[in-house]
């Protein structure tokens, strides 16, 4: 095909065109910055309250003077996953809400490619949130810890938590895209995610850890190797990672299948 001779040739082929288009969708509106501010505030509050919260009698959280306690403190840096899953769901549902899905599918009619590119892009966004969360969380923890009696955290644990937070947030963002594909209504999707992550999962993971550790949030606790009330432990790191990957793969597949032939009107 002959292309243009003018300053603006029509055709270009750069392979990750779909992923890069999805990333431009995210960075060309302000929402992702707002969510990033949310990540910073949420993690700052988590770290501060872990350090300064009074001990609760009868419902013993491990103390900062124990290896479990200090690990739990740093694991607050993994809190970006909540924002990652929400931005993933928003990214998908706003295409329906603002009816931009039509132009998306006109540019690339192969829907699996579009879904795949969106998930890849949101993995990057989620992982970026995870990274910022780790930087902010670690900086605050190291700044405030000298104010309290505490034990030291191992370098290995710091790397494990950082890796888990970044990958975990990336995977949760992909889960968010899948949830948005399945639920479609923006408000319903976001409310559903908030109720699930902040209420249902918290209750099950806390009070029924034998079941809770198999849920996505419980699996993330395994990846971060936190310790629950009264010394409850979750899956090993690799186990948690596998469960989280499994959920992501399952939801991504179901989402891709349901969009395959759906009419876009």
């Amino acid at each position, binding site marked *: 095909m002959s292309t243009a001779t*003018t300053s603006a040739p029509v055709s270009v082929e750069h392979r990750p065109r779909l992923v890069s288009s999805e990333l431009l969708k995210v960075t060309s509106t302000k929402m992702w910055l707002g969510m990033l501010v949310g990540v910073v505030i949420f993690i700052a509050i988590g770290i501060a309250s872990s350090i300064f919260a009074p001990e609760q009698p009868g419902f013993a959280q491990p103390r900062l003077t124990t290896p479990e306690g200090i690990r739990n403190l740093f694991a607050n840096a993994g809190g970006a996953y909540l924002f990652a899953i929400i931005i993933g769901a928003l990214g998908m549902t706003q295409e329906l809400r*603002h009816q931009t899905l039509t132009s998306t599918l006109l540019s*690339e009619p192969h829907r699996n490619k579009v879904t795949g590119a969106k998930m890849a892009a949101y993995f990057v966004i989620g992982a970026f949130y995870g990274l910022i969360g780790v930087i902010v969380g670690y900086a605050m923890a190291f700044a405030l810890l000298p104010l309290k009696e505490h034990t030291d955290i191992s370098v290995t644990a710091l790397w494990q938590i950082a890796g888990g937070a970044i990958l975990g947030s990336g995977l949760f963002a992909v889960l968010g895209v899948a949830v948005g594909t399945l639920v479609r209504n923006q408000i319903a999707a976001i409310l559903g995610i908030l109720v699930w992550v902040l209420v249902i999962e918290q209750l099950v993971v806390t009070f029924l850890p034998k079941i809770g550790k198999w849920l996505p949030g419980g699996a993330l606790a395994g990846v971060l190797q936190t310790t629950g009330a009264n010394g409850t432990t979750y899956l090993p790191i690799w186990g948690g990672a596998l469960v989280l990957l499994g959920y992501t793969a399952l939801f991504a597949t179901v989402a891709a299948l349901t969009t395959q032939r759906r009419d876009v*009107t």
Partner: protein
Amino acid sequence: MTHAAQLTAGAVASGGSLGQPVEVVGLTKMFGSVLAVDDLSFTVAPGRVTGFLGPNGAGKTTTLRCLLGLVAPTPGSATIGGKRYDQIGTPIRTVGSALEATGFHPGRSAINHLRIVARSGGVDERRADVTLSLVGLTDSAGRSVGGFSLGMRQRLQLAAALLGDPGVLVLDEPANGLDPEGIAWLRSFLRHLAGEGRTVLVSSHVLSEVEQTVDDVVIIARGHLVRACPLTELTEATHGVVVRTPQLAELTAALAAAPGVTVVPQADGSVVVRGADAAAVGRAALTAQVELHELRAATSDLEQVFLSLTGGATS
């Protein structure tokens, strides 16, 4: 006009794959129990502007969405240059389209909207600036689309359709929301694109809106094809000669000798003769010694013809 100059600049960038025919064959679409499109067949030729016409709810948007792979036909086919939309690699370089109920993120700038489309469609992002200036939106490039008027959104849709410098344009009600000046601009724009050999398919629910733009019409009502013909065939139907005579049979016989002449009796006792002018009818009457009580040329409104065509299908 500056637009015309820019238009030519845009045309130079043409990909060379101009003018592919659009073919719709036996297209049917049910939404649940609603039959939106019913066994519809027509073709759209390159190098011409084709008006896709029908009242609201006739099935125009649904047909175009089937053509563009957004809605699955049940059954039937719609192809562009013989290919289904999803079989065309990087389709926006072949088919540019602007559909009804296509939106914009209100917080995103016009130029970024176009860059996103260009990037995912494999089109050089500098085309975003080119097409924005083609539609006269350069000054609003950095503004959020949330503050755009309906007319500006229509222009932005058109800019998006032109990104890939496509040989086929599919525009759904592009004149909606445009002011008279905008409609005149759109008219010359579409004529120019067809003049370059491109296939241009524009839908509208008002014939008069596109009357001066289109070469061919495809008229549908309730999902059915009513008429597919050159516009001139419809225009001819608007010209007639009103005749009143006590010797109708003799006159009809006299006129029947001439080819292509029809005599249509009217409710008020007169007849309308089509295919001949008043002079020819008068001469025929004189020769046949037919007494005339009235003889005058009459032109009915094209929109009236359109309404009677589409109204007929709904009764």
